[in-house]
C-alpha cells in the first residue's frame, strides 16, 4: 500500500479540540449517571489474548485486529468490551459478591469497511450487570439505556427489544435443522426479508410457517408479545413450542417491569431482530434515533459467557457508540454547550527579560481563576494585535511596549490593572 507520512490507516482518524471536548463532556455526563445507579467504572487492557476475546464469538475473531506478541502469543485489540468484562468478573472480581455492576468508557477496534458512523477505532460506553437474572436484570439495563439517552437530551429515540429464544424456539418447533436455522438468521440479519420469507415458505408449512414468515413484520407495541403468546397457545404442536413460549413469557414480564420503571413508551418489540454476537442467550436490544440511519446502542443478556470463564452467573448489558451518539446529537442540534471561557494571550517582548516576571505572575493568577492563558513573546505591539486576532482570543495583555490590555472583538483598550479587575469579577466574553 502506498501512503504518505501524513496519512493515518483507513478507518482511523484524529480528533481535535472541540471534538475531543464534546466527547469528554458526554462521557462525563453518562459516567455520572451510571455511577449514580451503583455501577463501578473499570478499565481493561486495550490488548487481550485472542482466545480470551474469542470466547465472545464462538471461538471466532473475524473482525478483530490480531497480531503476535514477542512471546509468540496471538493477541488482539478488543473489538468489544463485554468479553473482557466477563473475564474480569471471573478473575480479579471473583471474590466480589453478586450482583456486580460494571461500566466502562473506552476504545474498541474492528476491522470493517469504513463508512459514515463506522470507523475501525471508536469509543464505547457501556454497562454489564452480572448476577441478576431475567427479567429483573434485563429491565434494569433497558431502563438505564433509556435514561442514558434522556440524560443527553436526545429526542425522538426508540429502543427495540426481542428475545433470542422466540425465533430459535419457533424454528426448532418447525423442525428446521441447525444449518437452515443459521441461514434464516443470517438472512434476517442481512435484512433480506424477501429471501427469508421464500426460504421459510420452503422449510415450514402450516400456521407455524405463517408465523415464521411474519417474523420480520412483528414489530410494534408490547401487546404484540401477548398476542403471539395467545396464538402459540392455540397451536396443536404446543408442546414443541415450550421454548418459544417460555421466551415470550420472559419478554412480557420484562415489559411489565419496564412499565414500572416508567420507560415503556420508549421501548418497542421487534421480533425480527437478530444480533451479530453469538453470546446472547435471552433479551436482545437496540437503540436508535430517527436522525441516524444506524443503531447507536446495542446489547442483551448473555447467561453463558461468564461460565466459559469459570464463574457461572447470569448477566446482561449494553454498549453505545460515542461517535454515533455525537452525530445524532449534532443532527438534532442537541450537542452539549461547551463552557466558553475568556481566552487570554499575554505577550511579553521577545529577546528581553523585562516584564517576564509580571507576565508570568499574571498568567499564574489568571489560570487560577480558570481563564485559559497562553504566553507568547512578540517583537512589537503590531505583531501582538495580529497574533491575538489569529488565535481568536478574548483578551490581549501586551507588554511589548507600553503595557496595555485589549478586549476583543471590540478592541477596547484599558490598563492591565483594569483588565485584571474585570476578569476577576467574571467578565462576559463574546
Amino acid at each position, binding site marked *: 500500500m502506498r501512503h504518505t507520512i501524513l496519512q493515518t490507516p483507513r478507518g482511523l482518524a484524529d480528533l481535535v479540540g472541540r471534538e475531543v471536548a464534546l466527547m469528554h463532556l458526554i462521557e462525563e455526563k453518562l459516567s455520572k449517571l451510571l455511577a449514580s445507579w451503583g455501577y463501578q467504572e473499570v478499565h481493561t487492557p486495550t490488548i487481550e489474548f485472542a482466545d480470551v476475546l474469542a470466547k465472545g464469538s464462538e471461538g471466532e475473531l473475524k473482525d478483530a485486529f490480531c497480531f503476535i506478541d514477542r512471546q509468540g502469543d496471538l493477541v488482539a485489540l478488543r473489538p468489544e468490551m463485554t468479553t473482557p468484562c466477563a473475564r474480569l468478573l471471573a478473575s480479579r472480581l471473583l471474590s466480589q459478591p453478586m450482583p456486580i455492576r460494571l461500566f466502562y468508557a473506552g476504545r474498541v477496534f474492528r476491522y470493517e469497511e469504513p463508512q*459514515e458512523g463506522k470507523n475501525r477505532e471508536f469509543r464505547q460506553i457501556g454497562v454489564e450487570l452480572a448476577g441478576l437474572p431475567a427479567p429483573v436484570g434485563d429491565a434494569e439495563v433497558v431502563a438505564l439505556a433509556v435514561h442514558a439517552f434522556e440524560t443527553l437530551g436526545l429526542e*425522538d429515540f*426508540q429502543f*427495540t427489544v426481542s428475545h433470542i429464544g422466540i425465533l430459535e424456539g419457533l424454528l426448532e418447533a418447525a423442525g428446521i435443522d441447525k444449518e437452515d436455522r443459521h441461514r434464516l438468521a443470517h*438472512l434476517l440479519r*442481512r*435484512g*433480506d*426479508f*424477501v*429471501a427469508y420469507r*421464500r426460504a421459510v415458505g420452503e422449510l415450514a408449512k402450516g400456521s407455524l410457517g405463517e408465523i415464521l414468515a411474519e417474523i*420480520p*413484520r412483528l*414489530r*410494534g407495541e408490547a401487546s404484540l408479545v401477548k398476542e403471539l403468546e395467545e396464538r402459540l397457545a392455540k397451536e396443536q404442536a404446543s408442546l414443541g413450542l415450550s421454548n418459544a413460549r417460555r421466551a415470550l413469557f420472559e419478554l412480557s414480564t420484562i415489559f411489565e417491569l419496564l412499565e414500572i420503571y416508567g420507560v415503556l413508551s420508549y421501548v*418497542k418489540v*421487534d421480533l425480527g431482530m437478530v444480533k451479530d454476537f453469538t453470546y446472547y442467550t435471552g433479551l436482545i436490544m437496540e437503540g*436508535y434515533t*430517527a*436522525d*441516524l*440511519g*444506524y*443503531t447507536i446502542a446495542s446489547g442483551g443478556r448473555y447467561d453463558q459467557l461468564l461460565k466459559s470463564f469459570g464463574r457461572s452467573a447470569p448477566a446482561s448489558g449494553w454498549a453505545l457508540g460515542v461517535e454515533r451518539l455525537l452525530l445524532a446529537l449534532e443532527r438534532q442540534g442537541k450537542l452539549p454547550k461547551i463552557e466558553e471561557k475568556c481566552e487570554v494571550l499575554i505577550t511579553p517582548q521577545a529577546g528581553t527579560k523585562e516584564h517576564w516576571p509580571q507576565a508570568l505572575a499574571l498568567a499564574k493568577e489568571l489560570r487560577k481563576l480558570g481563564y485559559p492563558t497562553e504566553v507568547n513573546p512578540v517583537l512589537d505591539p503590531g505583531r501582538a494585535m495580529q497574533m491575538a486576532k489569529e488565535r481568536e482570543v478574548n483578551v490581549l495583555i501586551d507588554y511589548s511596549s507600553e503595557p496595555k490590555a485589549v478586549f476583543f472583538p471590540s478592541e477596547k483598550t484599558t490598563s492591565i490593572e483594569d483588565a485584571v479587575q474585570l476578569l476577576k469579577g467574571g467578565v462576559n466574553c463574546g
Partner: protein
Amino acid sequence: MASGFLTVAIPKGRLFPPLMELFQKAEVLAEPLEEKSRKLILEDEESQLRFILSKPTDVPTYVEYGAADLGIVGKDVLVEAGRDICELVDLGLGFCKMVVAVPKDGPIKRVSQLGFDSRVATKYPNLAREFFNRQGLGVEVIKLNGSIELGPIVGLADAIVDITSSGQTLEENGLVPIATLGTSTARLIANPISYKMAFGRIMTIVRQLEAVLGEGGEADDPDLADLGR
C-alpha cells in the same frame, strides 16, 4: 423521518415506466410521475412521498445512508453493492438473468474451461468473483462500466458476466450464455432505521403493493440472493 414526507429513491431508465404503473395500480400514487421533467426530486403532496430520481446503482447508497427511507432497485444491483439495507418486497418487475456468456464460435463451451489465465469482463465484479470463486476458478475479473459485450470482440476478455432479459443483445454481438448465476427482479428496499421508525407507514405501502402483486412465481433459476454476502 418518522413524520412528514417519506423519501423514496427510484431508478431512472427502463424500470421507471412499469414502476409508475405499479404504484398507480397499488394506489401508492394517484398520478404517475413524469420522468421527462428534468427535476431530480419530485414531491407528491397527497401521498406525502418525495422521490429522488437517481442512477440505479446509486439507489442502495441513498438508502443505506438514510438520505432516502425507501428505494427501488434490481436485485442484481443490490447484491453487487452489498449494502446494509432491508429488502421488503419483490416487485416482480424488470426480470432478467445474470449469465456468463462467451463468443459463439470460440473455444470455450463450459464455465469450467475458464481458468486462472482467463479474463471476464463485467459491470458486476463482486458477483462475478463470488460465482467463480465458489467453483474454485480463479479467473481475472475486469470491471467495465458499459458495453460489456465489446470485451470478447476486441480481445479484452474471454467471457462476460452480464444481465440479459431476451438474450437479443448477446446474440447480436455473437455471444451465447453458458451458465446462469441467478435471476433478478426489482425490490422495494428500506433503510433499517427508517423501517423501524416509520414502520406503520412503510408497512402500509408494502401491503398496498403486495395486494396487487400476488404471490411471485417460482423461477427455475435461483435468486441472486444466494450469491450475496
